């Protein structure tokens, strides 16, 4: 319970990061969204045994973290919270793929371990990129970007409304859950009938709330659409950022610089 409560507090914290100011925060949200998607596609487009070409991609989240002054420890914690599913599936790779692929000294490393490491690395890269996108853009601006990029307005309105009521209703649920745990001493009160009536109560309150909101919105002239009036302008900085990131990402994708660097430094070391 405490864990969920804190993860919802986190939700507000992630959004509050978006109100900070930095060169990255000032970029147009559309640019950031497109760059993030390109980054993710580049990362997942590698073969499953690729490891060395993936590592340099870490430069993108690291640079953004630094430039946007985001707390790395926080992003790391979020990563750990989300890791289990990828971990559960990835952990089977070493079991099924036992062919040796790499020797380091007398140590034999099977293909399964390499693809497992590759999978976890992809996970870290893609998830941190998405988290950083939200942390330096904010949900409202992202929705605005989506609308401008042609996402149906009904869906964008839905996202905005959902986000607005998320906090209200989680508070409501929290009150219900707290009341239950105070009366049930931890263990009882978690049976299906109890939960069902709690959820139903929550649903009834939700429906009432929706009705009130709808009436209030109608009074103010709601016609099924939310109008977002914030101006969005793509300036020189945005274009430079987009071109720079695209070149860098495509460069990293199609020309693996790592072996050359490794040769240069590694050769010198052994020499």
């Amino acid at each position: 319970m405490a864990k969920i409560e804190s993860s919802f507090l986190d939700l507000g914290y992630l959004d509050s990061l978006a109100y900070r100011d930095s060169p990255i925060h000032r970029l147009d949200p559309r640019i950031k969204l497109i760059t993030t998607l390109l980054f993710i596609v580049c990362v997942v487009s590698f073969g499953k045994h690729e490891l060395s070409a993936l590592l340099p991609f870490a430069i993108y989240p690291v640079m953004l973290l630094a430039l946007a002054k985001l707390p790395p420890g926080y992003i790391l914690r979020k990563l750990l919270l989300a890791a289990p599913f990828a971990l559960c599936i990835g952990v089977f790779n070493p079991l099924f793929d036992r062919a040796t692929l790499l020797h380091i000294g007398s140590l034999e490393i099977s293909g399964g371990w390499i693809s497992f490491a590759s999978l976890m690395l992809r996970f870290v890269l893609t998830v941190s990129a998405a988290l950083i996108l939200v942390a330096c853009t904010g949900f409202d601006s992202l929705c605005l970007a989506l609308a401008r990029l042609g996402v149906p307005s009904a869906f964008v309105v839905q996202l905005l409304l959902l986000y607005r009521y998320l906090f209200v209703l989680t508070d409501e649920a929290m009150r219900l859950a707290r009341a239950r745990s105070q009366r049930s001493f931890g263990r009882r009160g978690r049976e299906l009938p109890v939960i069902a009536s709690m959820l139903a109560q929550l649903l009834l309150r939700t429906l009432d709330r929706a009705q009130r909101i709808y009436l209030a919105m109608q009074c103010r002239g709601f016609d099924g659409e939310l109008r977002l009036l914030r101006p969005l302008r793509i300036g020189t900085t945005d274009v430079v950022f987009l071109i720079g990131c695209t070149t860098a990402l495509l460069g990293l994708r199609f020309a693996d610089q790592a072996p050359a660097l490794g040769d240069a430094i590694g050769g010198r070391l052994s020499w």
Partner: protein
Amino acid sequence: MHMADALISPLVGGVMWGVSAAVTAYSARKIKAGTDEGVVPLMGVLGAFIFAAQMINFSIPGTGSSGHLGGGMILSILLGPHAAFLTMASVLTVQALFFADGGLLALGCNIFNLAFLPCFVAYPLIYRTIVGAHASEKRVRVASIIAAIVGLQLGALAVVLETFFSGVSELPLTTFLLLMLPIHLAIGIVEGLLTAAVVTFVGKARPGALATTAAGPAVAPLGSGRLLARWLLLAAITGGLLSWFASTRLDGLEWAIFHSSGKEALSAPATAAHSLAAALQERTAVLPDYSFRPAVEGSEAGEVAATSGEEEKQWPDVNLATSFSGLLGAALSMLLAGLLGFILLRLRQRP
């Protein structure tokens, strides 16, 4: 249940994005065309309700674990399929962005698995069929349970197929299915029981609440036929695309095997599809190829006829130099990135 970006390939992610985007656009048009705009705030608040409901978890009888409401089926019953689909898609989007549940590229997959399948397949084909015209309490209960189970089983199946076609995981198809389906059978039963209990409770406590929402967008028998046709078409397109991908993948695999067993140029079908898939697979295929080739060229042609077993043992060894320097270089570049970030952070903190 949420697919992660790390588990899918760009092609699978892209196809599922396309399918989900098409259904989103279709549903959005349906909602706009609908006369009842009261459904829009209802969708927003019910989306938030799904989040809130997931916070109240309960213990599954007989096991130590706990479960929570998934959402697709109850939303369909309350809102009808189109609005429920949009609501579920928005919930998944927020989960992907804020909770790192799933990812941006995997969002298409997740929307398909957890929104499309329950709302457009399980709800109209199973729930509506069982409940029929006169919704008695017993029928609603049975229908919600069966529909929730079927929806989740389909979702689990889709997760397995998407992972399999992406080729990132080594899990064999059957093993993965045997892992996923029973787990989701249990989750489905629980979700069904919960959905049924909530729906009947609300139906009793406030008969109006369900009637108003179900009356408008409920799929008319005539509409469900068209819906079914659309769905079948979509399934056919998706299936076609996926199986095309699967066959090109096998080609790629055979290609690599041929190379590692020392046989000369395999005449791969030079279709656009193949070259696209080959380009995507470039990294896997090129790596063994590169390190293998010098060994062949360096040796006499006669040695090429060595047994495939020997060759297979050989290529990883040849790989050593490039792989190791690659790893070293990559580690160094990461270190460099970290250092750069650290310096930037320091510089920015100073003024």
